[in-house]
């Protein structure tokens, strides 16, 4: 009997091998590459031959002010994204579940979900189509009503608005589904009792629906906070690209790392920024998880 159990364990282990090989080969070994952050990498010397430089890559990031800039942008954008997208998604869910005319609301929800399916590259084309200085539809419109055209791609300050808007555009349909699922599960008796008491629809939303959504929102908020050092790389890179005029307002850690890899080939600096992001991210996740554990242990990540 014992031997049979043993052999079954082996079978299970064998079935696990492909995944183990994958995670070692494509996650754990590359993780050791964080050593590059402490090296002055050159193609000629390679990974092992390049000289150690201690913390000088980090020091340069810090002194040049880039570290502060990309950290500030990453954190502020993430906060703006979470709040705008989820506040709007909650409204969408409340209205879609509460309005009469299910066919229309269902169609509207499908339309709101549509942007989720397209590639960020296409989103980049959409933004260019609207905001391009020479041909953009926005400027066509402004000229038609006799207003000055705007040169958006030379104007850093409008980009936080544009990026926040298109982030919402991409995620509202997706995010509202979660809230819709919560609303559907609310006990109908609560609403019936409220109606008998004479509560208006708005009051029912405010005193019954919203309080039911708050715990879900808080959990999502905390989970997103755990990822606050990571950016929506696809969004930023496809909309802003390599337009250095806008970097002060739009550069986030992920775009910085990507650029240092494909445009400047500054391996040491890119690794340093990446390691900084991962390490700080890890600390934040541990903090957030500790917080969730205290508030709502069921939802703790680990």
């Amino acid at each position, binding site marked *: 009997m014992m031997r049979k159990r043993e052999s079954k*364990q082996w*079978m*299970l*282990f064998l*079935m*696990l091998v*492909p*995944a183990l090989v*994958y*995670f070692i080969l*494509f*996650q754990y070994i*590359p*993780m*050791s*590459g964080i050593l*590059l952050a402490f090296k002055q990498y050159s193609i000629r010397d390679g*990974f092992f031959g390049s000289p150690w430089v201690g913390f000088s890559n980090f020091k340069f990031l810090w002194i040049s002010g880039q570290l502060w800039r990309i950290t500030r942008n990453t954190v502020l954008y993430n906060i703006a994204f979470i709040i705008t997208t989820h506040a709007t998604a909650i*409204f969408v869910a409340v*209205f879609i579940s*509460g309005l009469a005319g299910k066919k229309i609301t269902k169609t*509207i929800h499908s*339309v*709101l*979900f*549509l942007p989720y*399916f*397209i*590639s*960020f*590259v*296409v989103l980049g*084309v*959409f933004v260019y*189509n609207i905001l391009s200085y020479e*041909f953009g*539809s926005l*400027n066509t419109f402004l000229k038609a009503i006799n207003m000055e055209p705007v040169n958006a791609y030379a104007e850093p300050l409008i980009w936080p608005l544009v990026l926040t808007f298109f982030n919402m*555009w991409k995620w*509202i349909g997706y995010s509202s589904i979660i809230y819709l*699922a*919560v609303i559907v599960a609310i006990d109908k008796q609560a609403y019936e009792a409220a109606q008998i008491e*004479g509560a*208006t*629809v*708005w009051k029912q939303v405010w005193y019954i629906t919203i309080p039911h959504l708050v715990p879900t929102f808080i*959990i999502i908020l905390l989970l997103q906070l755990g990822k606050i050092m990571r950016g929506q*790389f*696809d969004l930023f890179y*496809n909309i802003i690209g390599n337009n250095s005029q806008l970097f002060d307002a739009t550069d986030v850690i*992920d775009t910085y790392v*990507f650029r240092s890899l494909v445009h400047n080939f500054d*391996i040491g600096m*890119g690794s340093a920024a*990446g390691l900084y992001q*991962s*390490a700080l991210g*890890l600390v934040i996740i541990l903090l957030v998880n500790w917080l969730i554990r205290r508030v709502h242990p*069921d939802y703790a990540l*680990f």
Partner: protein
Amino acid sequence: MKKIYSDVLSFHIIGYVFLFILAIACVLPFVLVVSGSLTPEQHIYEHGYRLWPKEVSFDAYKIILSSPDTIGRAYIVSMGVTFFGTAGSLFISSMTAYVLSRKEFQYRNHFAIMIYFTTIFTGGMVPMYIWMVNFLNLKDNYLAIIMPTFLTAWNILLLRNFIKSIPEEVIESAQMDGASHFTIYSRIILPLAVPGLVTIGLFISLHYWNDWAQARLFIEDPDMFTLPYLLYNTINRFDALSRTVAGSGIPMPDMPTQSLKLAIAIISIGPMVFLFPILQKYFIKGLTVGAVKG
């Protein structure tokens, strides 16, 4: 009574106005791009893109369809990457999920933690790039597009939860009959897990279908471009645009570049827009399951 009615009315008016504004904001960029792709080049230069073309011209689409090689190739590459990436990922993810769901497997928690840890700490993009290119020699290899996101802890754990909901008796009775774990997995678990596999498969395939970043990093051979990366190149590099429509025989200065970019964007999202109403309910189901599980 009257008071309640007026409230229902205001709720509906505000609600519908709110939803309609959002819906228009969602559709408007699509309309603008379709309109731009149908506008004659001369009009774009004179008047810019507009909501509705003054004059309709199919030139951009004609040029693309007259030299379908490049786009056709990119379509095939994207379909291949999506198909093999999704199939392989589903197979190994579900097999791993089955092993991690077996209580008799001794070290399952250790392995689960090992897999989970990759979501909270990574080496980052640069070390990954050096490893893939300098050590594994995966430059210009389709595996370079597939591998970086092939298995994710999230998918494996979601599938594990799904498999856990399959009644234990089914598995135990098969074990009584002497079935090996692999047989149980392939003959019993896989068929029962189809709804979960479909949902997660859709998320994985959407991800592969829309990929451009891995291609940007690892693919230099134009014959191996994925569709979104071909689009990315065409927009950002003039020489790439001329290559994409090289077979059309039209000299580059006469090329309607502005409408052409938009037409390529439209052609690349075509299948998604048609498939999406059919697939939508599976996405919603999957998201809802994820939400309930937290």
